[in-house]
């Protein structure tokens, strides 16, 4: 191996760093007492922070070029870098938001940090996967850590049940995915996504081979739909969101969405662009059903975590609108705009989801879970600043300007209209109108109703800064969305 070749592997430096550092942290953690557990949190923050800068370094070094290393297993490109950076932010925010909550409930254990970091590693591997194999390894690493995290509170029947459901359905979906992959492998004879793309393009021309590929594609899409959480593969989402400790719900609802999205981009857009017509139809159906069921069912929820779970389903449906609008009649002109709108949507969604669950963690105290809608009553009276942040979050989720959520919706709707999917766009806005109702209800509870009891939650300065930054980021992105939009565009152009 020449030194140049060796150096090119440095592009995987962030993954290597997270792997090694997490192992070290795990071992150190074995020798620390419970009182010192906070140190593990700071250690984890440091690991994520360093990974952030390593990725920035890779971005700087790679100058927007794509490189496939490790014998076609790993791809380093702008999209990967961007999504990884968002994952770091999400993980770091999760660490800040969850510490006090976990400590109050005696869940502040070393496993939490280790599992979180390993799931981060899994996501990073998924995001940079250039082969079915890497993709699957990353997926399993991430998922197994998340299953365990959901069951973190092992004395809670609800959590255990949620973890069990998550595990069984997750395993099923992994199986579906693997089955689909094996079909595609059987047809194309390669595991490398870029080679699959080449072969599939050739095979898709003949009717027999195409049927075979589409057969595999169905399983791939089903597996992906499970992981992203769209109707009709959404059943695990409400239970897991509800059952998991809120701190873990926050984790499950943020970075893994990015990873699942990356997986969909890699498999469908990178791997099977020539079958776009087929998977676009499937995604259109999934998107429509998700927006419909997610938004309508969310209205009936009284538990905020469940409500946000259904809102996630609806939002993922919206995100799919961007993904399915890339190729029109074999024409790729709008592809960059469409896919980048989906990237923008998922990033903005993750910010909103982090903020919303962060607010729930803020309102929870030792011995009190902020879970029901009524628990937010009168927040404006007791704590106007946090009520204002939640107001921004809710209007952003609704998609009202000037918040980032509006531009996310604008971008995907524009992509859909450009692709001629007018009816899908119209039904999307109607469902988002229905969705507005339950977001408004939260604003109503905070602003129009009086509090049952007046308790001021106390949180660390770090928490306050992080949550404020999170909420305000959505406002700032609402006034100045172009830096992030341009980044998404660059990421897709370099794909």
């Amino acid at each position, binding site marked *: 191996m020449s030194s140049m070749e060796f150096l090119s592997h440095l592009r995987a430096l962030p993954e290597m760093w997270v792997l090694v550092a997490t192992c070290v942290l795990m071992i150190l953690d074995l020798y620390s007492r419970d009182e010192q557990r906070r140190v593990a949190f700071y250690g984890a923050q440091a690991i994520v922070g360093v990974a952030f800068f390593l990725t920035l370094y890779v971005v700087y070094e790679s100058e927007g070029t794509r490189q496939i290393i490790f014998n076609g297993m790993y791809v380093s490109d702008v999209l990967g870098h961007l999504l990884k950076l968002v994952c770091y932010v999400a993980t770091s925010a999760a660490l800040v938001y969850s510490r006090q909550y976990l400590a109050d409930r005696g869940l502040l254990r070393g496993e939490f940090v280790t599992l979180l970091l390993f799931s981060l590693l899994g996501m990073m591997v998924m995001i940079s996967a250039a082969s079915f194999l890497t993709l699957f390894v990353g997926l399993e690493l991430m998922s197994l850590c998340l299953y365990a995290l959901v069951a973190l509170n092992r004395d809670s029947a609800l959590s255990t049940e949620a973890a069990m459901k998550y595990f069984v359905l997750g395993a099923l979906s992994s199986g579906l995915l693997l089955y689909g992959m094996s079909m595609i492998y059987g047809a194309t004879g390669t595991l490398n996504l870029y080679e699959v793309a080449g072969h599939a393009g050739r095979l898709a021309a003949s009717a027999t081979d195409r049927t075979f590929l589409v057969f595999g594609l169905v399983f791939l899409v089903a597996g992906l739909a499970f992981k992203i959480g769209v109707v009709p593969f959404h059943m695990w989402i409400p239970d897991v969101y509800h059952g998991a400790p809120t701190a873990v719900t926050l984790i499950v609802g943020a970075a893994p969405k990015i990873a699942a999205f990356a997986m969909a981009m890699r498999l469908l857009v990178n791997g099977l662009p020539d079958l776009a017509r087929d998977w676009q139809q499937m995604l259109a159906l999934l998107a429509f059903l998700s927006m419909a069921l997610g938004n309508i069912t969310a209205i009936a929820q009284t538990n905020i975590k469940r409500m946000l779970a259904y809102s996630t389903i609806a939002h993922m449906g919206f995100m799919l609108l961007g993904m399915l609008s890339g190729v029109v009649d074999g024409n790729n002109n709008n592809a960059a705009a469409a896919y980048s709108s989906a990237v923008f949507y998922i990033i903005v969604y993750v910010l909103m989801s982090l903020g919303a669950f962060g607010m729930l963690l803020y309102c929870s105290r030792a011995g009190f879970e902020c879970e029901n809608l009524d628990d937010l009553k009168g927040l404006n009276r007791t704590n106007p600043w946090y009520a204002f942040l939640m107001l921004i979050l809710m209007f952003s989720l609704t998609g009202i300007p000037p918040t980032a959520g509006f531009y996310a919706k*604008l971008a995907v709707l*524009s992509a859909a*209209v450009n692709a001629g999917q007018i009816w899908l766009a119209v039904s999307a806005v109607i469902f988002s*109108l229905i969705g507005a109702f339950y977001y408004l209800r939260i604003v109503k509870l905070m602003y*129009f109703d009086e509090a049952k009891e007046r308790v001021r939650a106390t949180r660390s300065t770090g928490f306050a800064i992080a949550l404020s930054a999170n909420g305000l980021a959505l406002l700032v992105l609402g006034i100045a969305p172009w830096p992030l939009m341009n980044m998404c565009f660059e990421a897709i152009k370099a794909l």
Partner: protein
Amino acid sequence: MLLSLAIWIPILAGLAVFALGGDERAPAQRWFALAGAVLGFLVTIPLYTGFDASSAGFQFEEKKLWIETFNIHYHLGVDGISVLFVLLNSFITILIVLAGWSVIDNKVGQYYGAFLIMSGLLNGVFAALDAVLFYVFFEGTLIPMFIIIGVWGGPNRVYAAVKFFLYTLLGSLLMLVAMLYLYNKAGGSFSITDWHHVPLPLGVQIVLFFGFLFAFAVKVPMWPVHTWLPDAHTEAPTGGSVVLAAILLKLGAYGFVRFTLPILPDASKELAWLMIALSLVAIAYIGLVTLVQTDMKRLIAYSSVSHMGFVTLGFFIFNAYGVEGGLIQMISHGFVSAAMFLCVGVLYDRMHTRMIGDYGGVVNTMPKFASFAMLFAMANAGLPATSGFVGEFLVIMGAMQTSFWIAFVAATTLVFGAAYTLWMYKRVIFGAVANDHVAKLKDLNAREFAVLAALAAAVLLMGIYPLPFTEVMHASVNELLRHIGSPKI
């Protein structure tokens, strides 16, 4: 630069009022809000004095690239139509700040903050020349209004706030899809002026027409999507009702002038019968509904629907009298409805009831108030020499050119309008003192007097000498009619 100032001074002042903190700093917040509102009005005056009335183009233009990936610009500019609304809005904002001065004592900072931010956003709507910028301001106003109705409103405020929000959101979301379609057809441009030149087949125009119609009809509001308005008006605090009636309702009518008529002229002509029919229903039927109201705010709300029917009627008869009459009616209604709601506010602050039946003989205890209320009631009924007359007269005259029967139905408003307004006036103001509460009423204080006097001056000026208002809009209205006249199929 002036337009940016008109938009951002109120918004920044509003944020500053927010930032001042809780109710312990209420006096400072009031003065700060007043300063922001006055400053916001002062910067709009050069817009009028420096306006070139002979030009139909957009003036005071500002254009900067905003969102590159979508080719969205921060593009502002006013023509003879929109400049008046910027002024009207900034003027009304001062009155709203004064009107709530001693009445609002709960979350004062948030109240004034929300109003000032909304004032800035409304200026933005009237000045925006980029569709997305327009949409951002248009939708952005929902948030402060939702909070205003919901927090400081009456007993049924939550229902009213949610209804208001969802109704308007439905309309605007459909408009968004229509805008995205036009963006696509215009080759990736959100510029409203570019859209004026996009050729569109009639079928497409009609679909787009309905896309925009939902948004604007809800805002105007036109019959039959007007039902949110009485609820919102009744439950909103006085300031909220004023801004709702005076400015927010104008957004819908303004949307017709800015989008529907010039961009979809053929569909507008094709569907003019529908618009005229809906307008006449609003004028005549809602006029009758107004008669039977027992709640003063509800009565004025319904009369607003009826008056706004004149505006849409004027626009869709496609002649200069009609369009100018509609625009004049919008401005006049801005003054008159604001004044009417402020009058009700004056009574409500003292008696805490809006029911006509709880009053009677107010003139005995509040003579100054009764005189002002008389003037505004007359203006609402469209009496000559008040602003209400000019717009209605022009629209009826324009309608006469199209068809006698349209003009005939429209003219019934002169009867109904006089009936419901004067009857309410009679029941509330005249007669013997009805009860002890009325007997204890105190007449206007200096602050209320100043607010009502300012509006009275505006109403009379516009009624006696409307030229300053009409001369700025001539060129732009002719340009608009030229657009309507040139088919785009």
